[in-house]
């Protein structure tokens, strides 16, 4: 996986313009069709893309987290409890969710990140399971297995976003913020440090990069983004339970990231855009949806190691290295 060279690319390549144009067009689809169903899918794409974007930041230092759903859960529960118990406005609940998720990641990050490769995946898998079990064990906060229903909708300065058409612009705005943050990190000094750690930890360490600190920063930022997306999800869907943030959700974020491209800047967005609508258009055949997910995942790993976002580059290199 030595492809971090992409991070040092100039700001405006023709490819980037094509990507941005494509994504803007896709974002406009619900307004063209006017269908409430399409608005719903588009909102779900935004939420998934934010969460997957957070996972991407962690992946940029070479780590794959299977605890991403747990951090989304921490953000969701933080915001929901603040809003329902302490009457905090939702607009403050969302960043609070991000803050708490990020703080937890920062505290537990240092010991966790000493592990690399499959060992890091395994410990985050165990953490996600531990989160679910503990939440089930404290029903007075989590609602237990029946969860918390009737969560207040998002409201901006006194205006409640009660329907799909009004939530969508705000979802797009939040996604733009997250993607903007990703671009800033990627183009800045931090992004170069991330890439160095990802490519060769020992070399990065001996070149004077504080690798442990760098990994903790990535884990904290990524998990905070997960917390934000989880809080958004909770207020949009209106229901959460410990089971919402189980292993399956972590796996679906990993699938979106890998399908989009593990190290590509636009990978999370492409992955979410490709995979989120898939199940919605296969209604009535939900079993097939997961089989298709599995096949897509294995096929992408095998034939497109850079994900869908790397496809044009791979094609333009006459077959690439596939």
């Amino acid at each position, binding site marked *: 996986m030595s492809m971090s060279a992409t991070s040092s690319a100039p700001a405006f390549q023709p490819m980037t313009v094509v990507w941005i144009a494509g994504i803007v067009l896709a974002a406009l689809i619900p307004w063209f069709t006017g269908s409430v169903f399409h608005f719903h899918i588009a909102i779900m794409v935004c939420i998934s893309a934010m969460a997957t974007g957070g996972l991407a930041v962690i992946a940029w230092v070479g780590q*794959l987290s299977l605890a991403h759903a747990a951090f989304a859960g921490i953000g969701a529960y933080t915001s929901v409890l603040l809003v329902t118990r302490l009457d905090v406005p939702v607009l403050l609940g969302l960043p609070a969710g991000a803050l708490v998720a990020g703080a937890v990641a920062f505290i537990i990050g240092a*010991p*966790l990140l*000493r*592990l690399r*490769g*499959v*060992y890091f*995946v*395994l*410990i985050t*898998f*165990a*953490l996600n*399971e*531990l989160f679910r*079990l*503990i939440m*089930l*064990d404290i029903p007075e906060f989590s609602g237990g297995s029946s969860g918390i229903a009737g969560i207040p909708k998002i409201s901006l300065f006194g205006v409640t976003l009660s329907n799909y058409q009004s939530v969508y612009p705000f979802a797009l705005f939040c996604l733009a913020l997250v993607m903007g943050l990703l671009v800033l990190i990627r183009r800045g000094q931090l992004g170069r440090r991330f890439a160095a750690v990802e490519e060769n930890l020992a070399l990065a360490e001996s070149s004077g990069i504080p690798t442990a600190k760098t990994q903790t920063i990535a884990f904290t930022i990524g998990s905070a983004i997960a917390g934000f997306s989880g809080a958004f999800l909770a207020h949009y869907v209106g229901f959460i339970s410990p089971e919402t943030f189980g292993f399956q959700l972590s*796996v679906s974020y*990993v*699938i979106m990231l*890998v399908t989009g491209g593990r190290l590509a800047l636009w990978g999370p967005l492409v992955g979410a855009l490709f995979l989120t609508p898939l199940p919605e258009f296969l209604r009535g055949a939900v*079993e*097939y*949806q*997961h*089989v298709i*997910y*599995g*096949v*897509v*995942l*294995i096929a992408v*790993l*095998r034939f497109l*190691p850079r994900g869908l976002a790397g496809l044009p580059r791979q094609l333009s290199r006459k077959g690439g290295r596939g």
Partner: protein
Amino acid sequence: MSFLIAQSLINGVILGTLYLLMAIGFTLAFGVMRIVNFAHGEFYMVGAFCALIGVTWLGLPFPVTLALTIAVAILLGALVERVVFRPFRNDELSGMIASLGLAMILQHGALILFGPDPQAFPALVSGVFKWGALIVPKSRALALGVGIVILLIFYIFLMHTRHGRALRAIVQDQEVAAVFGVRLEIMYPLGLGLGVALAAVAGGLMAPLFGVSPFIGATPLLKAFIVVILGGLGSIPGAALAAILLGLIESFTSSFVSASAADIVTFALVIVVLLVRPAGLLGRAEA
């Protein structure tokens, strides 16, 4: 009190044996192929469905059904190794991600074929063994007995046959094993096939006790995962020790505290072991 302790001890050993059946294949796949196989639990599910089909649809005797289950699982495992895992031989992370996809395919494939409802499995034996106040249902005793026999056969295969030695050689050092004439092209599919066959046997043995559905693979995977982390990824003696330990911990905490406490305690233990001693209780350190 002493009766409760003895009963917990027996239950713990029964649980531990079943966890060991699950864990050996999981740890073998890592030792031989460096694959963390998240689809391992789904082979337990496949084994349970094989047993169901053999006993209720085809009317075969249970021992014949188990033998067929093993054969089917070995073939399926070898096929999966060839089609899914082989391209990722030198990439642990991609192999593991691929196994997540494989698990989805197997589980939801079973859902398409058999539907979501749990299916009853006819009881093979009924009644209980009694020693004073101690009670062991005969169905559990049967599962335990067959499980131990299969573990013994596997142990003899591993320690005293040519292929068994070859597998152990690969676990120790793949390159040196290859230099000494171990054929990886045969041993990789064989290793994965045998590993998932043990999971499938566990599924077949447990089917009469717990019923069969497409979703039964998740819990055995978690147990195998805990056992293998505690014992050290790739270490078979470590898995044996950890499986019995986990069985006893679960049995005692659920007798004396609560079942949810048992789960939380074991997962906390897993995290501590990974942090303090990633190679496991008995595993050797990574190079």
